[in-house]
């Protein structure tokens, strides 16, 4: 079947099987490999992208279900080459160790800060409940999200 959608502001269409997952469309057809597949069982959140502005696990959505939607991946966060505030905060606060979970963590954090621009530490931890870091580097990830919240509040 053919699916057409908008990915990072660009209209795309691809010929896929009905059972193709959105993450496979992104990684294999569109070569957007910034979105990772960690567990493939909806647990880890490495594959989080935004579909129509909502952070979702792209390993648990069919490409067919994303027909007509607007998808943003980690590659779409810094279109001009300048890092998004959340990306900068992860770098400045060493919010990653191996980096595998980072794209999903960042995409979840971006949506979290849109909904709640001034989260408490508990709210950040609850907000990241669907993202697993197997380096267990949560401390600096939480610190990075708090720093990003502050920088987004001051710069708008």
């Amino acid at each position, binding site marked *: *079947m053919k699916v057409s959608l908008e990915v990072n502001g660009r209209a795309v269409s691809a010929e896929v*099987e*009905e*059972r193709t997952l959105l993450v496979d469309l992104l990684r294999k057809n569109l070569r957007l490999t910034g979105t990772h597949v960690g567990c*493939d*069982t*909806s647990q880890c*959140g490495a594959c*989080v992208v935004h579909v129509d502005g*909502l*952070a*979702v*696990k792209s390993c*648990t*959505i*069919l490409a*067919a*279900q994303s*027909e007509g939607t607007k998808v943003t991946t980690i590659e779409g966060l810094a279109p001009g080459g300048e890092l998004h505030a959340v990306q900068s905060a992860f770098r400045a606060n060493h919010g990653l160790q191996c980096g595998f979970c980072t794209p999903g963590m960042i995409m*979840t954090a971006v*949506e*979290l800060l849109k909904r709640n621009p001034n989260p408490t530490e508990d709210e950040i931890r*609850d*907000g990241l*409940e*669907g*993202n697993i870091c197997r380096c267990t580097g949560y401390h600096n990830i939480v610190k990075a999200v708090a720093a990003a919240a502050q920088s987004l509040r001051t710069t708008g």
Partner: protein
Amino acid sequence: MYPFEYQKPADVKSAVQAVSGSGENKYIAGGMTLLPTLKLRLARPDRLVDLAGIADLVGIRVERDHVSVGAMTRHADVASSAELRSAIPALAALAGGIGDPLVRNRGTMGGSVANNDPAADYPAAVLALGATIVTDRREIAADAFFTGMFSTALEAGELITRIRFPIPKRAAYVKFPNPASRYAMVGVFVAETTGGIRVAVTGAGACVYRIAAFEAALAKRFAPESLDGLSVPSDGLNQDLHGSAEYRASLVPVIAKRAVAAALAG
């Protein structure tokens, strides 16, 4: 996943027709349970009928004495609806505690209730609040809806369109989540409704159920102490690597008392 056909109808009638055709066909709502099930090849539908294109199935309406939630309304929308929160705060809070934020952005009330997972949260609310499940062909009372593990009174091809919750005098839901999966080891929804006190337990058994002895004790006096000395038998309760049946049985009155205290605290 095994291969399947995919259809996305725009109205309820076409959806019911598409699922009722030949072969083994399934509705897909948010897909938060169905897609993992398909990946594990635990199901082999010939056709998936996606309900996401049916606008009638989405939305929350708060009326004088009840709240009506469209089957395709996502958990995140139930949790964040100010109107729903002011009418039935316990239901909004329950929705905000399902899974994780990414699951709440996709998962739907109708999908959860139709699936009737033994550890799902929504069935406890539906049963304790004495909700009515509205389908494409009839209305089903909550007491007659949940029939067993992953099974409901829905007929083949029958589609939930809305769920109507009477507004209770007060209610609360407390769950003891598994520390890893966050699924309810035991979750108790307590409600003081116009029809009396209702206590529904999820996570503990094969299917959500009410506890008549707790309801009777709370009807005399709605306070946590009313449950002092009451216990539930462990026979038939879930037993898995997360906990024994006896452990779950011991949790039920503890969580029920916390739910009563939460309902009293408003």
